[in-house]
Each structure stands twice: as C-alpha cells, then as structure tokens.
C-alpha cells in the first residue's frame, strides 16, 4: 500500500481525501454508509455565530452535469454546534474541520473564538466565498483587501490550522490566494461554487427563490482544475482542490495540478460512499504506477 499521508499546515492527514462543507452535514449522516475515521479530514457544514434559517424554498435546480443550490448557510449557530454536535464527533479518528462564515469581520472572529475552545477540532476553513448570502460571504472573497482583512483578524485569534476557502467568482483567484497567504493562512481551498442561474421556461420564472445560486458538479471541474493549477503556482502554502470531483481519477487530476489534498462535495449526494472509493482508487493508482507516496504526484503535471 502506498503512503497516502499529506500535511496541511499542522494537520496530518492519513490520506488526501476530505469532504466539502455543505455537502456532508455533520458527518454523522454518513455513518450508516462507511467508517468516518477512514477520511483524511471532514469539513462540517457552514457555521455562523448566530443561527440562520437560510433561504426560502426552492433551493435547488438540477443541470445536465451538476446542480445549483441556494441554501444560504442554514445552520443552528456555533454554540449549538459546540454544545450538541461536537461531543458526538470529537472522538472520531479523523481531522474535524469547522467551516466558519460571517456577515462582518467581528462575526468571523467571534465564531472562530468559539471553535477555538473545542480541543478536538483540528482546524477551521474560513468561508469567504459563499454566493448565497446577501451580506458577507462572497463579498469578502472577491476583493484581495477585504479577504486580507478578515484572514488577518481571524489569524490573530486562531493558532491552529487556518484554511481559507476561495471564490471562483473573481477575475484573478491567485490575487486573493496571495492575500490570504500574506496574512497567515496555512492553506487555501478552491473552488467554492460558481454563480449560476436556472429558468423554468414554462413558468417563465427563475427556478431558485434567490434567482441565482451556486453551481457545482462535474460541469465546474475544468474551471476548478485551472484555478487550482494557477493558484498552486502562485502560493507556497498547500492548496486543497475541489470542484466537480466525482471519482478517483478526478482526484488524481487535481493532485497533478498541484493540490495537496482534495475535497469531495456534490458527489456525496449521488454516491454516499464515493469518498471511500476515491481513497481506494487513489491507492490503487499509486501502486499500479510504482509510486511509494502520494506526495510524488502532487504538482507533477508535465507540460
């Protein structure tokens, strides 16, 4: 068996396969399907300081190779997570990462401070890229200055691994990645969803209650792959790649493009066991091609 372990900041991942926030609940929803401790890491749903009801229904539209969502960070708040959810997750032998979001810098900081109290949380993923909330979210992630401000403020209060999740809805994603790196981010994860839209021709109305939403799935993979490749060349910190990964071959492509780890998102909806299949497939690929460690293929793209 090949060595699948990778390092992201202070995180030691037993393999480079993680789950993407917003597509994996709190992880417990998958415990009927597989042993969560097999994952390199799992990122729980977007958490905010105060509870959020999220957007009105309808929140989803299917496309031929993906889906649009407009959930809007529905969650019960970080205190609920700390009191009710964390005690059930803390002993799972994997890296538990909390995705943190906010409408103001103060929100991000306060939410992070609460997460920092939870010993068994390995790191946070700072969400500055959600396209489905009116205030905050993506607004922080589409400008290098505001991205730098929020990363700087959070870095001050969070000593453990800080991952910053980037939006693809920008002109140059490497600028934002560099800004995050300069303010002390340990890693960047990309891409969050692409802003998209669906229309019901019969009703002559938008499908989503919010008119626009976040596009994910195989249709975004080429864009994600390009942005991961560009970003991995622009920063020194590890890049976590995500966007339309549906199988182990997709995961290998992201690693070759320069990602140190990958996240699977929408694929979890279609195959709840997909992460395990990707871990096994990756191991088989490495063995078959004579690699001793997954690190040998990270950024090994030949051009």
């Amino acid at each position, binding site marked *: 068996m090949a060595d699948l372990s990778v390092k992201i900041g202070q995180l030691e991942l037993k393999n480079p396969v993680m789950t993407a926030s917003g597509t994996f609940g709190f992880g417990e929803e998958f415990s*009927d399907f597989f042993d969560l401790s097999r994952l390199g890491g799992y990122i729980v749903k977007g958490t905010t300081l105060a509870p959020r009801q999220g957007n009105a229904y309808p*929140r989803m539209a*299917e496309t031929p190779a993906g889906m649009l969502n407009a959930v809007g960070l529905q969650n019960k708040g970080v205190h609920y997570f700390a009191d009710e959810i964390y005690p059930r997750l803390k002993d799972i032998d994997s890296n538990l990462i909390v995705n943190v979001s906010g409408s103001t810098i103060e929100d991000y900081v306060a939410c992070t401070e609460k997460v920092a109290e939870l010993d068994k949380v390995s790191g946070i993923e700072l969400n500055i890229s959600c396209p489905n909330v009116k205030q905050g979210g993506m607004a922080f992630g589409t400008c290098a200055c505001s991205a730098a401000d929020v990363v700087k403020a959070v870095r001050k209060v969070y000593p453990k691994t800080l991952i910053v999740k980037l939006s693809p809805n920008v002109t140059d994603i490497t600028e934002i990645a560099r800004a995050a790196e300069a303010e002390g981010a340990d890693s960047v994860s990309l891409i969050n969803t692409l802003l998209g839209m669906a229309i019901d021709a019969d009703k002559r109305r938008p499908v989503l209650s919010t008119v626009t939403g976040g596009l994910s799935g195989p249709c975004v993979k080429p864009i994600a792959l390009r942005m991961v490749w560009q970003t991995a060349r622009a920063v020194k910190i590890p890049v976590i790649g995500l966007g339309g990964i549906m199988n182990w071959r997709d995961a290998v492509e992201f690693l070759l493009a320069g990602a140190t780890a990958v996240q699977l998102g*929408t694929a979890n*909806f279609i195959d709840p066991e997909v992460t395990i299949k990707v871990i096994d497939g990756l191991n088989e690929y490495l063995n078959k091609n004579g690699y001793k460690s997954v690190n040998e293929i990270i950024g090994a793209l030949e051009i």
Partner: protein
Amino acid sequence: MKKHVMDLSVTENTSLNANYFLLKLTSAQKLPDMLPGQFVEIKVEGSPNTFLRRPISINNYIAETNELWLLVQKVGDGTRTLGKLQAGDTLNLVFPLGNSFTTPENASKSVVLVGGGVGTAPMLFWGKYLKERGITPNFLLGARSEADLLQLDEFRKYGNVYTTTEDGSHGEKGYVTQHSILQNQQFDHIYTCGPKPMMVAVAKYAKAKDISCEVSLENTMACGFGVCLCCVENTVNGHVCVCTEGPVFNIKDLQWQI
C-alpha cells in the same frame, strides 16, 4: 433506521398507462425493513440530462418474499429512462429514507387515505400496513380521468375504495374533497399524498373538521438523507428537511395557509 446503498434487480417493469409504470425489484441480499411513507433514491444510468438520483416513494414491500415495488410517473428524462428498464437490469438504491405515517393508537379508529396522481403510490403500502394491524382503511383516490386511476384492484385487497375523476369517467365527478364520503362519514385520521393544491384542500377540510391529518410532501431534493439542505419545508420549527424530518408531516406543524 439504518440506511443502505444496494444494487437491486429489476424483476418486472409493467406499464400501467402512458404516464406510469410499476417496477418490481428484488435482491439476493435480504432487503432492509421499510415503513410506509418512506422512499428510495434511485441512481439513473444512461440519461445524459439526469445528474441527481430520483426520489421515489415505496409503493409496496413484502419482507417475506424480499420484494419491493415502486410506482413511477414519467415526469422528465430521468423517470422516462427508468421506464425503459427491463427484467434483469440492475438499479442502485439508497434506502429506506425519511419517516413514515403515524399508526393510530386505537384500531377502532376510522381512517381515510387520500391520494392523487402519483401520490397514490405510498398509500397502497400504508393501507396494507394498516390492514395488517386490524384497521380497514378507506382509500379515496382522485385523478383527471379513469385512465389515470391506478392499481384499483390492489387497493381493494386492503380496504374500501372510493374514486373521483375530474371528467366523471369513474367514481364521483369532481375533486377528492368534494367526494360524498368526506361529506357524510366521520373520520378520526386523514392521510394524504398528491399534488400540493389537493393536499392543501384536504388539509383545509381536516382543519375545519378538527381531524388529525398527515400529508406526504415531495419537495425537490438532491441527496435524500439530510445533508444538502435543499428540500426544506417551513414549519413551526423553522426550515426542516423533507427528506429526514418528513416526507410525512402533521399539518399542525406546517406553515401552510389553511
């Protein structure tokens, strides 16, 4: 209940009319226990425009023979592709998902199960389940015309069947809420599944008569097990997932204008 991902074999695919077909599935493995009201998520292969699984309610399930039936309406590319399945084909299912209807505590209670369109599908399994527990259900089934009334002989095995059609071609003419059985007979519980306007009308009737009423919703969903948060319904407890907190809800918990 533990959720499973399993490959099941299609043993029969019966066309019921131009719009509906009935899949009979089985497995070499023992099928997990299932309850009426629950549903499955089917992976659709061979449909280029279908990305997500399709949620389909459980039409019938016989534990002893390890058989599962799904009544499917051809709505779009995904369900039309499923309609082409043949005996011997394999289907990948995530199941059983969601909650179930609530069994009346007292077997002497009178119940009516109101179904419309593909919403009649879960009512067969529910009616059979009630019959097995000593409650003879009344089925009130509505459709546009006689051709759209499905599985009547199956329903008759488990209870009394009443029908309405909009064109009067079978049973009483009109909508289910106009049927004389609702006007003339007292019920303790109403269970309904069908188009939302029909369920709202039934819920209004139940509320006006102060009858306990459960509705089965089919909000658009991606995952089916509570992680995508797409299928939410607004309830007295805020937005909740239809796939995990439902699909069956008591109308007193919904924020419907009834």
